[in-house]
């Protein structure tokens, strides 16, 4: 039984919707970080005390979920559906193989730990 990790970089205001959607399909845990970056969207200009400057890195939220690979397809589809606005800057999803997982409290391993 193989584990995989989904890393989804999404628009920050979409976090709540994505979390709700994932919970609905039975996913029991995820990790979130505030990140910054750019893709084809690039940055934008801001102004401070009369001088313009470019913000290259835009704020995004990164969601990490580790799942049995049978669940991956459904989870990805759920994230895509919830996070999509159709405008540039919606983000990206990466899927990465995971060696193993351990629950610290019980020391369970593999699929039981996620």
């Amino acid at each position, binding site marked *: 039984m193989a584990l995989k990790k989904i890393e989804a970089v999404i628009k920050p205001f979409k976090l709540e919707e994505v979390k709700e959607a994932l919970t609905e399909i039975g996913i029991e845990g995820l990790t979130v970080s505030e990140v910054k970056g750019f893709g084809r969207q690039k940055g934008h200009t801001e*102004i*401070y*005390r*009369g*001088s*313009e*400057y470019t913000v290259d890195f835009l704020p995004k939220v990164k969601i990490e979920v580790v799942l049995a690979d049978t669940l991956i397809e459904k989870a990805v589809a759920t994230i895509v559906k919830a996070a999509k606005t159709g405008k540039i800057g919606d983000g990206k999803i990466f899927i990465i193989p995971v060696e193993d997982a351990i629950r610290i409290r019980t020391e369970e391993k593999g699929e039981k730990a996620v």
Partner: protein
Amino acid sequence: MSKWMKHIAAALVVGAITWSLADAPCVMAQDAPAEAVAAVVEAAPEAAPEDAGPSVELFTVNNTWMMVAAALVFFMNLGFACVETGLTRSKNTVNILFKNALVPCLGILTYALCGFNLMYPGFDYDAGANGWFGFAQWGITTDAAGVTSAYNVGYTYWTDFLFQAMFAATAVTIVSGAVAERIKLSSFMIFAFLYGAFIYPIAGSWKWGNGWLNNLETPFYDFAGSTLVHSVGGWAALAGVIILGPRLGKYVDGKIRPILGHSMPLATIGVFILWLGWFGFNGGSVLSADPALVSLTLVTTSLSAAAGGVAAGMVSWIILKKPDLSMALNGILAGLVGITAGADQMGSLDATIIGAIAGVIVFFSVLLFDKIKIDDPVGAISVHLVCGIWGTLAVGILGAKAGGAQLVSQATGVIAYGVFCFIAALVIFLVLKMVMGLRVSAEEETEGLDIGEHGQEAYPDFSPATKG
């Protein structure tokens, strides 16, 4: 300037915003000022028949208001700390707060040691005093008469000291924001000591100590310190920034690269604390609880602050296409500094005009100083020096004292303070630079003065503490 010209100028500057004020008569300021204290004294004739001083009750009320005012001016130190911290980067926060904590401490101690008696030396012109420099004694002491109305109808000797000491602390604190994020702490503290202990009180004695500027044919007028406090601090800030140079990365390849402040909420809190403190700064400068003058002063102070905020906010909106919060905040402070020289001499319309013009001036001044590479992270030079000069000159243009002779006296004062304070600050900074260095290393500046100067962080937690 004639009355109708004033009104045309007013209409141009403030337009519809102040339409409702334009009809209000500007009579109070014109009538009130000099005679007011005397009027208060006359109002209580029965209580102290032998010396015609105020009643004990009136003296107590006066003195209480002056102590409250001193406390309000003291509170301004927190306002400065918030503004300066908010408009600079988080890596220099401990350093800014340290300076803001220690400057008033030093200021009060040095004012007790010598400042008070340098500023109020009791120039005895019959004994040949020159009105430029005098010194009464070291330390502060008084006799039994010093704590009664025999000392002054408005306050005791101790209240007098405390109120004035708070002003001294304010003047030096102005410098710390302008030189922030690159000045060596030790050099700054020595500067603060020397400037606060000697330069501020000597300069102050020229006017408030009944020195030569108070004895011109048309005396120079500075009600609460547009020049004596704000410009005096502002000139030192300008000298400091010129000698220090800009922060690393501010001007690259001939372009301005803005360095963002790290907390706009903190900067905003600071500005409102300063506005509150200004009720004591200007309201206490009436030097008694005189109802007419104190209430007028609080109104002119607030109208000018409000007009400054609106003007700077609107100008930034028009010119930059977006309203800039830090400019609006600077505008409020500009209005406050601008009204300070004549807060008891202005009507409501005059005050509004002074504030609005200050708000416009501060906006363009910030842009101009940036253009000529005078790097002032918080806009202290524009707010305190430039608008201090405007407010001082405004006494000769608007309000009860307006007139050619007054304007000449105001300009004389501005120039005299400018020459003395700028040169004095320049000399102190240059000597410090030669003897011990003025600026931290480039490495320390990049890493932040919190670690470099203090070995501390302002925000040490990796992530906010949470329950569970």
